[in-house]
């Protein structure tokens, strides 16, 4: 083993995941210093960005208040397009969240050590994305304060009725609320040892008390770790089928209907692949910004980014394959409605949306076949943005083009978003960014205990080689 790992070429092929940190204490210092910085020590650009995104959250609040006061007619939903931007945004945000669970759970089960630098922020992203997603169906009910009784099987005298468990919409409620709860528990479990580190480093009373309570009295005892590791494995093990089930159930909302373009069995895997694709792109956008603003180049290395780009390439190609299959089956099925829907998708009134989606999701990511492209920060930043634009359009195309042409030409229509539609969607982007910025500043964004485990392991693997190696700055 050691003869292989001492090979100098290894540094090129398989560079260390933690670079530039001399010892474990350095790692603690580097990651904690972001959280422990005084207000004026945090770069001004951070506070300005936070103010901007915070203002957008106010916009979201205003839009939702307006909607509740007036009614959901303020959205552009019409007949025949009863589901439009709201469900598009819902599926979009849920999809974004899926990469977080994939990174934290599935890559954990595959023992992919490179996940340790990015899993905490990816998990946080999941939580925030699911929060944004939840807003749309909740407010689409029109009376969100009563939705609790409508959505959950709570015995009540308000309605005196129960949910219909034959409907995929109620499955969706179960899937998404379970997903949020499990992601939250998983995230908090991972956070506890790091909160204990912050508690032990705290110098002022308030931080000691706050982190003392949040860390639950964790002291890193061997007995703690034994339960903790077992629990982490179980949570990862159940999150893996969970994440696959959530987007499958979301796709059932469409697939169990009898609308041409929706009623297909390919939807569950196709939706899951698309979700992971868009989610990884979103993690990439956020990480590139965080890496640059918080100087985390030695922890989020080019190798991490390269690996993520490979996953984006794979999932993007899976999505492209699904597009081809859909077209093939539409032709092969011999069903005239199905054929019409797909021709209409590519060449009908929404041709511009469809071709945006094909370009952003299928063609552009093909650049990642080239290593030069996978390791170029500007290229990956641009592709991460175009991917998310493409994936938003994918949901919009699926939802709008199928509804826009009903079976009877008298029921054909077109969807125009209202300003409330647009501002609400922008508002959720603001909410997402605000929550992420707050998280990056006030909680350890990188899982210290996990990175230390990897660093300690690598110290032996790369014995004598890490010293003096230039970090990718």
């Amino acid at each position: 083993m050691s003869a292989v790992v001492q090979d100098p070429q290894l540094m090129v092929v398989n560079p260390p995941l933690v670079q530039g940190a001399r010892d474990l204490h350095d790692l603690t210092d580097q990651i904690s210093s972001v959280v422990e910085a005084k207000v004026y020590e945090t770069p001004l650009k951070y506070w300005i960005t936070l103010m901007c995104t915070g203002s957008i959250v106010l916009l979201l609040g205003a839009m939702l208040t307006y909607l509740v006061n007036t009614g959901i007619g303020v959205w552009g939903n019409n007949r025949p397009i009863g589901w439009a931007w709201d469900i598009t945004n819902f599926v979009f945000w849920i999809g974004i969240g899926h990469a977080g669970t994939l990174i934290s759970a599935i890559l954990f089960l595959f023992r992919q050590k490179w996940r340790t630098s990015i899993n905490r922020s990816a998990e946080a992203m999941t939580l925030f994305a699911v929060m944004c997603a939840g807003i749309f169906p909740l407010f689409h009910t029109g009376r969100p304060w009563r939705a609790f009784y409508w959505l959950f099987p709570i015995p009540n005298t308000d309605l005196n009725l129960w949910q219909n468990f034959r409907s995929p919409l109620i499955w969706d409620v179960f899937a998404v609320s379970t997903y949020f709860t499990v992601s939250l528990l998983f995230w908090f479990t991972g956070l506890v040892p790091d909160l204990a580190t912050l508690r032990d480093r705290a110098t002022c009373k308030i931080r000691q008390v706050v982190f003392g309570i949040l860390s639950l009295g964790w002291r890193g005892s061997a007995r703690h770790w034994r339960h903790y590791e077992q629990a982490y494995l179980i949570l990862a093990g159940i999150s893996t089928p969970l994440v696959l089930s959530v987007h499958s159930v979301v796709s059932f909302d469409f697939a169990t209907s009898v609308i041409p373009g929706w009623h297909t069995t390919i939807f569950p895997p196709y939706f899951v692949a698309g979700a992971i694709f868009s989610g990884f792109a979103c993690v990439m956008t956020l990480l590139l910004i965080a890496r640059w603003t918080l100087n985390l180049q030695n922890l989020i290395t080019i190798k991490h980014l390269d690996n993520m780009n490979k996953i984006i390439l794979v999932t993007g190609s899976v999505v492209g394959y699904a597009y081809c299959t859909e077209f093939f089956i539409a032709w092969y099925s011999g069903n005239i409605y199905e054929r019409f829907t797909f021709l209409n998708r590519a060449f009908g009134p929404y041709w511009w949306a469809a071709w945006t989606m094909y370009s952003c999701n299928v063609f552009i990511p093909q650049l990642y076949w080239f290593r030069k492209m996978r390791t170029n920060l500007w290229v990956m930043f641009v592709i991460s943005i175009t991917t998310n634009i493409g994936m938003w359009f994918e949901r919009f195309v699926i939802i709008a083009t199928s509804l826009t042409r009903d079976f009877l030409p008298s029921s054909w229509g077109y969807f125009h978003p209202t300003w409330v539609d647009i501002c609400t969607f922008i508002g959720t982007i603001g909410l997402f960014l605000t929550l992420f910025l707050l998280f990056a500043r006030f909680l350890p964004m990188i899982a210290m205990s996990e990175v230390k485990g990897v660093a300690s392991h690598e110290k032996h693997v790369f014995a004598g080689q890490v010293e003096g190696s230039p970090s990718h700055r």
Partner: protein
Amino acid sequence: MSHSPDPAMLIAQIKDKLGIGEDKVYAVIGEFAEPEELVEAGRRIRGMGYTKIDAMSPFPVHGIDEAIGVPYSKIGWIAVCGAIAGITTAQVLIYYVGKIDYPLIIGGKPLFDFTYSIPPTFELAVLFTAITTFLCTWGLSGLPRLYHPSMNYRSAHRASDDRFLLVVEADDPKFDAQKTAQDMRSVGANDVEVVEG
């Protein structure tokens, strides 16, 4: 009912039970710089006949459980119980709601069928497993708690940073403050200290 016990006495009794107090000795603690040293020292200390050994580390150290004899975690079995509870709850709920309390005929579909109950059943199984696992992780570790005598150790704060601590607790039958501290030094521990409860 006749009289309530003196609060001060009660606190003293609880502290006594928990092994807390300045007159009590909690353990002998020593520190190591490397995880491998901790495992090796743990193995040697256990070889000397100590049984109440613990270790504190900033990340899970591989091999420490076998070295100092930490029993296998039972969380897996409890999680299975959580999953079964989730499946049962979902099936009973969907059956009761659909077939008994609120039968609605929609599109001629059966009032209860195993197939359409699968998605919510799966989700509830996952939810119950996750909540059970989460609660047990802390419950079995004796958490949450605000105070633990190990915090009195001079460099206890470094156990969450970059040091690996080995603990021999005072309720070990072989424990003797002087002797144990000596044993601890003999296996290579730095900063050996007799820590008060």
